[in-house]
């Protein structure tokens, strides 16, 4: 986890995204406890209210939940929820910007498709 106060993204969003990523990659598994606001707050010198605001975004998404007096835990089905959310965002975040940049570079649709195929080929070659 790394919080950068100079980043364009507000700190509470950085916290939400990085916790979400840690859950998605399996650092914290389902029904496991995530770090407390206190731990994150004192490690990165961030106001605890900011940390809580970030965590509450994940609570609203149903990715984590609060156990009274114990802390925040990863919800059942959290990984699947994150995957579904990210699949929905994939078009906006990657495809739309890819086409945008391709147009600026005057790359045709066919060339893009070829590049994507090349990317998949490289991956399967390196996996052999």
């Amino acid at each position: 986890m790394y919080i950068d106060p100079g980043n364009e993204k507000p700190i509470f969003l950085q916290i939400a995204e990085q916790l979400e990523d840690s859950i998605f990659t399996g650092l914290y598994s389902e029904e496991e406890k995530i770090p407390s606001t206190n731990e994150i707050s004192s490690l990165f010198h961030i106001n605890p209210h900011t940390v809580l605001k970030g965590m509450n975004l994940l609570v609203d998404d149903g990715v984590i939940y609060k156990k009274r007096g114990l802390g925040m835990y990863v919800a059942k089905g959290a990984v699947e929820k994150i995957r579904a959310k990210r699949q929905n965002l994939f078009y906006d975040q990657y495809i739309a910007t890819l086409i945008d940049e391709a147009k600026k570079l005057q790359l045709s649709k066919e060339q893009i498709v070829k590049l994507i195929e090349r990317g998949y080929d490289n991956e399967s070659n390196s996996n052999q």
Partner: protein
Amino acid sequence: MKAIRINNLTKDYKRQNQPLRALDHVSLNFEFGKIYGLLGRNGAGKSTLINILCNRIFATEGTVDIDGMSAFENPDVHEKIYCMSEGNLCPDSFSVKEVFKWTSEFYSCFDMEKALTLSEMFGLNVRQKVKKLSTGYKSIYKIITALSLNVPYLIFDEPVLGLDANHRELFYKLLLSDYEKNPRTIVIATHLIEEVSSLIEEIIIIDNGRVLLSDTAEHLLAKGYSIAGTPANIDAYCKGKDVVGYDEIAGMKIAYILGDVQEDAVTPDMHISTINLQKLFVKLTERGGKPL
């Protein structure tokens, strides 16, 4: 609501040839349970304000209330507020241990055990005389005194003066873990703006004895941005916007603006980025509260 309410506070220093108005009708609140950054340039009036809050000097005009009670020489608010400031308040022939002992005589909420534990964490020898301490450790024994007092309003005037990076990290860490366990109001007056920018929830900027700005850190940082481009385009873009300052380098002008980005006026030569709190502070206090 629990808060320190500062109402219309004015402080005049009578000097022979040149009277000085250090505070000019300042009104603001420090609400309970929040961390405030009190920022201002040298001589802006921060320390005057803090000294009035803790009855070390008295206002020419105006009032301070703490949780609804007057703070003016009132024993009932004594255990509510503590100000850690640059000056030494004890005779400097005292040892650190003696300072702790006398603080506990004056404040029933002083936690001696905590003071000794913290001293150990900072590597402070409590048998050392205060006057023999280095600049850093002079700040440290005062920080420890403040953190060991269980008061609802804790004010720090330049708490990290002379502290090395390790001790500054330790201070911020202790401050936040303490705040989490024991919610209270913390006011930090400092020149090291970037160090506290993610730690504070509310920002108050004092300039020339007046409140220049009071906002949440998140809101202020979200609405501040810089835009760079050719001087002519930047000048055109800035019309009608709240510009806090400019910088210029060969063929390029950078404007610092508060407000929303006007997407349809951004030309391809322009580049937008965020501004940090320190830059915003420098530009705001250069402008001195007036529109450019």
